[in-house]
């Protein structure tokens, strides 16, 4: 199967004051048509910037300095505005954000915001766009769509606002949905509703999804594939269930050991030693080496890259075999 979204060696540079650093560096991944990839990382890992770079929505301080993004085989331009083939292609992507309140226009009704793309991108008539907006409100399971059409974002609850943002994202009839922590600000009971909605939409529309989150606990529910980011690089990729069950990068293992699960309260969480490095002074070699218990002299001097470590799996660790052995030992013990 040919990949639908293909990101190759993407690098994003952020300028801050008079300095610049690579906040995303050498990120490559593929998403199949209808497939879903979760990207997990902590704050500052570059996961959101990766998503914004794909969408062409980098902040003014950021720019793509290397790599390319292909959608259905067509390369997307780095800039957001324009009329070429790539720009039309980008209209097949939509993005939803964590904070719906600040992503929505506070002075336009939600109906107006949902109808905008059908009217201007899909070229529907005013009445047609309205019908489509109402239909979308129904699809995202907002009760009483006729009444909600005229509501302003501040009049809605957090969960409903997130549904509105999803409706807006769907309004241009995208083939791929980029999700930037869409459920992080929501209560868990609402989170399950939104995740179920996204799953339904994926199934019904054959949507591809890239889902960025800091929460390992939702990964398995939203995506079959997982990528773990640290200091702007992908350090591990593979089928989500396999990666979570037996990580092949010490950072992934560390995240899992630090996390709590409601079913295992006796598990004593273990923090990853040290803290995130300053992006202006990243450690040499493997950037995780100062915090890693597997680190050797080689890790300080050798540039690491994702290497195959199993069926469909890759890890950017020189000692992934040693990690696997330790885990196998734990399993027997």
């Amino acid at each position, binding site marked *: 199967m040919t990949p639908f979204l293909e990101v190759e060696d993407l690098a994003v540079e952020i300028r801050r004051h008079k300095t610049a650093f690579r906040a995303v560096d050498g990120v490559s991944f593929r998403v199949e048509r209808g497939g879903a990839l979760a990207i997990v990382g902590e704050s500052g890992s570059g996961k959101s910037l990766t998503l914004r770079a794909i969408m062409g929505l980098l902040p003014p301080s950021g720019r793509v300095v290397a790599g390319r993004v292909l959608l259905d085989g067509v390369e997307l331009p780095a800039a957001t505005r324009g009329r070429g083939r790539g720009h039309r292609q980008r209209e097949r992507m939509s993005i939803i954000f964590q904070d719906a309140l600040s992503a929505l226009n506070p002075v336009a009704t939600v109906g107006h915001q949902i109808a905008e793309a059908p009217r201007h991108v899909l070229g529907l008539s005013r009445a047609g766009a309205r019908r489509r907006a109402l239909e979308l409100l129904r699809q995202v399971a907002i009760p009483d769509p006729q009444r909600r059409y005229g509501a302003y974002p501040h009049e809605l609850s957090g969960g409903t606002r997130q549904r509105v943002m999803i409706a807006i994202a769907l309004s241009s009839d995208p083939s791929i949905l980029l999700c930037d922590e869409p459920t992080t600000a929501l209560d868990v009971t609402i989170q399950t509703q939104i995740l*179920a909605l996204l799953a339904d939409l994926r199934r019904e529309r054959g949507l591809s999804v890239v889902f960025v989150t800091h929460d*390992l606990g939702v990964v398995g529910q939203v995506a079959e594939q997982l990528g773990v980011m640290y200091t702007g690089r992908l350090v591990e990729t593979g089928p989500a269930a396999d990666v979570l069950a037996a990580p092949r990068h010490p950072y992934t293992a560390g*995240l899992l050991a630090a996390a709590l*699960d*409601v079913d295992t*309260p006796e598990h004593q*969480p273990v*923090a990853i030693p040290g803290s995130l490095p300053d992006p202006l002074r990243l450690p040499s070699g493997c950037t995780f080496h100062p915090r890693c218990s597997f680190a050797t002299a080689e890790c300080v001097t050798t540039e690491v890259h994702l290497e195959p470590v199993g069926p469909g799996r890759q890890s950017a660790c020189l000692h992934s075999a040693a990690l696997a052995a330790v885990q196998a030992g734990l*399993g027997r013990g």
Partner: protein
Amino acid sequence: MAEAPASASPPAAAAPGPLLEVEDLSVSFHVEHGRMLRAVDEVSFKVEKGEVLGLVGESGCGKTTVARCIAGQIAPSAGTVSFEGRELGQRRSTEDRRAIQMVFQDPYSSLNPRMSVRHVLSELLVVHKLVPAARVEDRCRELMDLVGLPPDALDGLPGQFSGGQRQRIAIARALAVEPRVIIADEPVSALDVSVQATILRLFEDLGSRLGLTIVFISHNLAVVRHLSRRVAVMYLGRIVEQGDRESVFGDPRHPYTRALLEAAPRLHQTELARPAVKGEPPSPVELPSGCPFHPRCERAEKICAAELPLLLAVGAVGDHLAACHFRAEAAPAARAGSHRGGREDPEKTGEPPLNGAEAR
């Protein structure tokens, strides 16, 4: 303080009564159009000395309002807060205020960005005359040590620290006045997973080493289940279930507690969690009749819309309470099995604990 409370409170000492008691606490706020919002409604609980009570609930359930009442920051409309058997009024003595300290979710906005850590701490020590002037610097260093920061952190400004370090500073500030009770309001919710663990460990340490009593407020069930001995679950201003953590999480009797448990993110869950509650919480100014949870509840029957269930004992003995007309029923086994089966198996078969860190 490392010495003082430790000598005053050997952890196993049989306390004559609860250290902290909240009785029938209600808080109402005036909102627009002359309406009243009942943020907290007849909340009662006790916290024994040295105990960690977890207060769980989603946004808007009133957990923070309860915390602020206990700390004396807002006045309840009805009900009392007692400390060591004495009722605490709204005008509290300096000592009573010192005894109960709060730690907030966002340490950045609760610390003065222009004041060095030393300045923050020494000011407290001097104003409250906690140590002689000559001992202030030593005490500051002790506090840093207590929260696991190096002494040179005293020279830093809050902006120079990471989120986890800032939370340690906020905890050091709370500890500086030698409190007996710490009310921690979502203290790890803004932190990355990798640092969350160290702050939780710090709270555990403070409980065991200093004999501190902790009210730990969180929306995160995993965190509360890990840290607390007793748990209270809140929904729309009321406690809907309360008891020790094994009973509440192991045998939840309120459908809302069950819904929260089902919705909690799980590390090895590969199937989608089934949305266990319908809709969204109603507006707190227009509460539903009867049980406030009934419009979203799967178990609801006629009586639920008519009659407010009281928080009553689930069984004949024990202090497991639930505010549900059907509290005598255990979780429906068939349903629990159908979507729990998948994720409980790995634990029961003793799969590897999946963490390289423990093996290191």
